[in-house]
């Protein structure tokens, strides 16, 4: 086999990580392939539907575990040492994740999905020395949760059409507008906000990025209840919020470049994730037990649908294996990673509907029987998978334009001043 580069000192790293995990965490009793049908908590969770006090406890546990990681050198494996990182490669990061998956540890998604996965890299790439020193160590130590103040009621897929205004105000800026779909804003200490600073320029050229203190006067976070019942994201109203100029990321009117850094890291983090309760529920071992428990293991129609789903799941997993192999060989992931995200959303959706068909009328109302009504939670989560992190339609545009080189649609909105564009939403620039 071709040797895998950048594995320098990997054995020692693995030993060190293993020792750390053995000391601070417990190994999982079951591997992900083992199914204990009818045992344990009867929930198939994708989005949280926890009551506030349970959610608060989980956030506290996440912060505490991140702190332990950080204090032991595993909180920011790829980060520069001057800001609290370990200065190692992405491969080390992947290896650590693989090891940690063997242990029962608190889910740190509230910190990592947005803050550490997307906002951290953006601050690192575009922040001033002062901002980096002030925020990065605190974020990766689990003290500071960050959120992404990007989407607006009038700017969804067309993010550059955002209308939240920032105007000069003494030594800083005054922000006014409304953000939406803001995950974890209700736990966040800071938010990365994209604001319109020059409406007379074309839409991509008049945007500036700021780091907003979420506890500042004028920041109003209101939970947004999802169709699945929980409230993981929010509306954020910004009313005369003062932001000092030293909390600006990148140049004035240069915020689109900052946003692209964040979005690139978003696409890198979505897809490729097969694990989690939902992933295990729609994987072959669990669905096989579902068929067995319902006396359908010999049902030709059910077997055919299961096989079709399994074939696509396995092939998606192979796609991720090979992306990882190429990555280890030094190749950077390109826009074709969108394929993985599309497949992930579709496979999970198909799995939920397959299970629903097997469960039948017992999904209509909670009969109390294990492994039946609990599928509603996943079923109600799946529509979001084809929207969040870029809708399926936008993903297909990316594939067609950036991979296949097909021409863009003629645009009427990228050259005219933002002020003259037709837009949805009520905020006027």
């Amino acid at each position, binding site marked *: 086999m071709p040797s895998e580069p950048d594995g320098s000192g990997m054995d020692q790293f693995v030993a060190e990580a293993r020792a750390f995990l053995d000391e601070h965490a417990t190994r999982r009793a079951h591997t992900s392939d083992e199914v204990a049908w009818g045992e344990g908590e009867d929930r198939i969770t994708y989005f949280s539907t926890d009551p506030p006090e349970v959610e608060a406890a989980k956030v506290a546990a996440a912060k505490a575990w991140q702190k332990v990681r950080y204090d032991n050198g595993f909180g920011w494996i790829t980060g520069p040492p001057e800001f609290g990182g370990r200065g190692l490669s992405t491969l080390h990061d992947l290896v650590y994740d693989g090891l940690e998956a063997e242990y029962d540890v608190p889910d740190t998604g509230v910190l990592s999905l947005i803050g550490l996965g997307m906002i951290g890299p953006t601050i690192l790439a575009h922040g001033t020395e002062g901002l980096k020193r002030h925020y990065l160590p605190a974020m990766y130590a689990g003290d500071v949760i960050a959120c992404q103040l990007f989407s607006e009621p009038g700017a969804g897929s067309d993010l550059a059409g955002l209308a939240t205004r920032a105007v000069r105000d003494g030594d800083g800026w005054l922000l006014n507008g409304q953000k939406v779909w803001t995950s974890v804003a209700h736990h966040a200490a800071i938010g990365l906000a994209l604001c319109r600073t020059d409406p007379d320029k074309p839409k991509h050229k008049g945007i500036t990025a700021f780091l907003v203190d979420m506890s500042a006067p004028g920041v109003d976070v209101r939970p947004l209840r999802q169709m699945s019942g929980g409230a993981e994201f929010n509306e954020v109203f910004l009313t005369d919020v003062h932001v000092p100029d030293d909390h600006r990321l990148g140049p004035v009117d240069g915020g689109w470049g900052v946003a692209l850094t964040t979005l690139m890291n978003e696409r890198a983090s979505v897809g490729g994730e097969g694990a989690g309760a939902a992933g295990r529920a729609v994987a*072959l071992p669990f669905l096989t037990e579902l068929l067995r428990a319902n006396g359908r293991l010999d049902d030709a129609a059910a077997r055919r649908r299961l096989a079709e789903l399994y074939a696509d799941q396995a092939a998606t997993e192979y796609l991720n294996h090979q992306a990882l192999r190429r990555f280890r060989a030094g190749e950077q992931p390109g826009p074709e990673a969108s394929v993985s995200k599309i497949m992930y959303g579709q496979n999970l959706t198909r799995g939920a509907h397959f299970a629903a068909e097997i469960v039948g009328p017992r999904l209509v109302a909670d009969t109390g029987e294990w492994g039946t009504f609990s599928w509603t939670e996943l079923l109600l989560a799946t529509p979001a998978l084809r929207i969040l992190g870029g809708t399926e339609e936008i993903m297909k545009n990316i594939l067609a334009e950036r991979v296949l080189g097909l021409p863009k649609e003629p645009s009427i909105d990228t050259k005219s001043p933002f002020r003259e564009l037709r837009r949805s939403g009520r905020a006027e620039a």
Partner: protein
Amino acid sequence: MSTSTAAMAAADTTRAEASDAELSELRTAVRDFLSSKADEAAVRAAVDSERGYDDKVWAQIAAELGLPALALPTAYGGDGYGVVELSVVIGEMGRVLLPSPFFSTVVLAATAIVASGDAGAAERLLPGIAAGTTTATLTVPDRAGSWEPAAGTLGIHATGSGAEAVLEGSAPLVVEGGTADVVLVVADGPGGPTLYEVDATATGFARTTLRTLDLTRRVARIDFSAAPARLVGEPGAAASVVARVLDVATTALAAEQVGGARACLQMATAYAKERMQFGRPIGSFQAVKHKCADMLARVQVADAAATEAARAVDGVPGSPDPGVAAAVAHAVCSEAFMAVAAENIQVHGGIGFTWEHPAHLYYRRAKASQLLFGGPAVYYERLLRRAGV
């Protein structure tokens, strides 16, 4: 028999592996050769020829590129590479729909000979196959067409004991059976399904080339009437030989399907960029653009499945179970090629429905190769069984 089986096993362990750079060089070499020798006009001429493929091109593939030898054991004139390398070659052949006895000879017949563990048959047949001077094929005439032979399901019966036998019956669908020099046959023998070798010049051997859906791969019916045959491997041992052939052949076929699907994607994309309607390229309309993106997604996933299966079948460490991976690749690549070949015609509109346009040649190949080893009902059920469900 036991010493020669050991010799074959030893030959197998010396399997060579190409680096990523070498695989890429191999791909370029085959692609360059095929682009000069097997363009669309050449493929159509071969289709209309008597044998169904160009003998001169086949001779060059063997003599100049040495491709039939690539994945054969070194002890019998081969280079000792595996399915990973073979898949690169087959993928390129699939891209241009090369009519050729390569698949039937190298993938079906040679794999069966190696899997049988019969050193005598290997010495007799593999050097000629490696040199490109012998063409061969394999037929498993089970009534379900699923390549899963069981006693009493086969349309050919063998009588006689020891190394010699006599075959009676017919094989209705034999890939490149109209031209193969040697036909390997799974027949109902005294000990159950057994592999035999029949020379195409033997008495009682009659073949009829059939009209085919896929114009670029010939199929023949072969009738055996007291035809003399030679035992290959052990009596009653054909089921396990065919199981190995199926893993290798469906994996190689998956690579071929990905090659064909990629060609369709490229054709559709190129056309969507150049065809102007309503004052702009049709590829700038999202309805067309998303069709192309869907095709790309299917090709990428299929490519991953075929590549992973090849690594698994070669036993590369860290790969999934070969039986599962081969079954996944067979299902996913069959479906992907069919879908992409059909959508390619839609992107082209009316011109894509003409005889002159190559789109139908791919559509034909896609459907025929999807059904070659039994089709969806068979491959989905096989996948579940391989995965233990």
